[in-house]
């Protein structure tokens, strides 16, 4: 049984109101399921609090079928609906269901949009920051090393743990919503020192120096180590935010990697020994030319038809650097009449893209810069899409399976070429 401090006991007794009481009840059930012995305090929580499609609201119609009902009954898993106050922790809303202005292009109904607007107003009313992105660290929430967070979004979690050295487990919707009220999360997993040490080694024997190569290596690593912590050594170079972003997202998708060490690159891996917490242990995997080709073929195993009718960029949400690159690649060209190009980012980054003229360059070329969501989250692709091209290993892992379409994986330049010609010509150099 998890031990409670006096303050936690008081919350459980209802001293901070019914919603916080329900939040503590859920967090205690969760802590006991994990086998956690105590809670850790957090003041940095990111989730998808209370947002729900209409059918979930309708499910709780006897409780009012509204934000309050969903937050109580679904998010807090409470048997009764309670009043939900403003959140107590610094709380952020991650990605949402549609673009706030281009929702009709995404094929959303008016009713779905009305629900989206209503949910967003409720989120704001509860003091939750509307970041609407899978990359909170690009939109105003960058934790510091050692900070205890409660974050959802596997690609953001792996980034926070590995690249920043912040501490969060891969939390879920219900645990983050509860943590927003109780400012507590089970002190388990990545909150503790021992848990953050490496389990298996990965030796990289081919140059990994571009975002495309970092994405493939990430997919390999997740496939190899599954949900454990890899310690990566060898010829990985040119580290940058966007490369880590793609690497982590890929590793979290093919396996369940929530933290990785790159020796000499990430903050908790100054040496191999430090990363492992002693001598290297576990298995040792090798990423060589053969494995690189195998991963490329695996990522392209759901691509057969070379007529590409949709190109999606922005998984995880594009940074301003990536939007600038995409704009430079497409400036003066046009998206093919047989294809479409949607690029996804956060509202914060789009404001910069607007100021820089990138949004207009993309629009003039026939592409859209969209925010809040992505094709996988919103399950929205251009009407009639059969074959997508993607520059994200994570997106090619998910989107074709979810939408029953074909998918190609390649470089950003190959994807933009495909959008402009309607033909996939990607190949492994």
């Amino acid at each position, binding site marked *: 049984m998890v031990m409670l401090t006096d303050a936690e006991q008081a919350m459980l007794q209802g001293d901070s109101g019914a919603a916080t009481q329900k939040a503590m009840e*859920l967090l205690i*059930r969760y802590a006991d*399921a994990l086998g956690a012995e105590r809670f850790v305090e957090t003041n940095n929580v990111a989730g998808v609090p209370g947002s729900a499609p209409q059918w979930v609201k309708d499910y709780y119609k006897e409780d009012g079928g509204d934000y309050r009902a969903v937050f109580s009954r679904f998010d807090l898993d409470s048997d009764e609906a309670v009043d939900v106050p403003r959140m107590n922790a610094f709380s952020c809303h991650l990605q949402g269901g549609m673009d706030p202005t281009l929702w009709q292009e995404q094929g959303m109904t008016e009713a779905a949009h009305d629900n989206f607007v209503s949910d967003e107003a409720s989120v704001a009313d509860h003091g939750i920051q509307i970041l609407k992105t899978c990359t909170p660290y690009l939109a105003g929430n960058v934790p510091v090393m050692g900070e205890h967070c409660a974050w959802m979004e596997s690609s953001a979690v792996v980034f926070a743990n590995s690249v920043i050295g912040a501490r969060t*487990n891969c939390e*879920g919707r*219900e645990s983050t919503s509860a943590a927003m009220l109780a400012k507590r999360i089970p002190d388990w997993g990545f909150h503790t020192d021992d848990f953050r040490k490496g389990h298996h080694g990965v030796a990289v024997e081919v140059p990994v120096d571009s975002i495309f190569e970092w994405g493939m290596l990430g997919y390999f690593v997740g496939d190899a180590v599954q*949900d454990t912590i890899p310690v990566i050594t060898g010829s990985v170079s040119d580290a940058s935010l966007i490369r880590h972003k793609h690497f982590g997202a890929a590793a979290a998708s093919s396996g369940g990697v929530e933290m990785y060490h790159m020796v000499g690159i990430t903050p908790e891996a100054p040496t191999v020994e430090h990363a492992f917490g002693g001598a290297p242990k576990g298995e040792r995997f090798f990423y060589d030319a053969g494995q690189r080709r195998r991963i490329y073929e695996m990522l392209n195993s759901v691509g057969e038809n070379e007529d590409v009718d949709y190109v999606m960029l922005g998984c995880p949400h594009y940074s301003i650097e990536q939007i600038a690159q995409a704009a430079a690649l497409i400036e003066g060209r046009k998206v093919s009449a047989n294809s479409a190009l949607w690029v996804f980012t956060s509202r914060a980054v789009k404001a910069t893209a607007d100021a820089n003229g990138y949004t207009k360059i993309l629009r003039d070329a026939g592409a859209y810069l969209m925010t809040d969501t992505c094709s996988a989250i919103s399950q929205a692709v251009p009407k009639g899409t059969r074959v997508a091209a993607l520059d994200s290993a994570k997106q090619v892992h998910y989107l074709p*399976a*979810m939408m029953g379409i074909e998918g190609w994986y390649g470089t950003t330049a190959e994807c933009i070429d495909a959008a402009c010609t309607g033909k996939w010509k990607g190949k492994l150099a």
Partner: protein
Amino acid sequence: MSTVLDKPRVVIHGRKVVPGVAEGEALVTRQTISGWGGVNLMTGTVIESRHELKGVSFANKVLVFPGAKGSSGWSGIFHMAKLRGMAPVAMVFNIMTTKAALGAVVMRTPTVTECDQDPLDLIKTGDWVRVNGDAGTIEVWDKKPE
């Protein structure tokens, strides 16, 4: 009728994740399961490309699997599957993660982990399994006892 027939083939002991008792037909996989993006919550069906359970539904089954992987949407998707009546009735898994723990908690499905014998070796798809979360036991029969 006969107590011999009613005796389980195997009894496995583990640790409670979620209390309660439930039983049903086993669905066993040696591959980890993604929630969001790996499962159709409307049907309880695995949709992940290349997954050995692709196209198979875990609705109202006892799901026996190594553990959860992938998106942080794991609990949310399984929770919504529960609203749809498409959740497993009970779960047994080996690897503890926040995803699987939270998912089990909010589905309120009796769940056991940290077993004394590997459930993936001892339970096969189609077996009849009773998961007792309170006692931390998993009883396995070839078919539903009379």
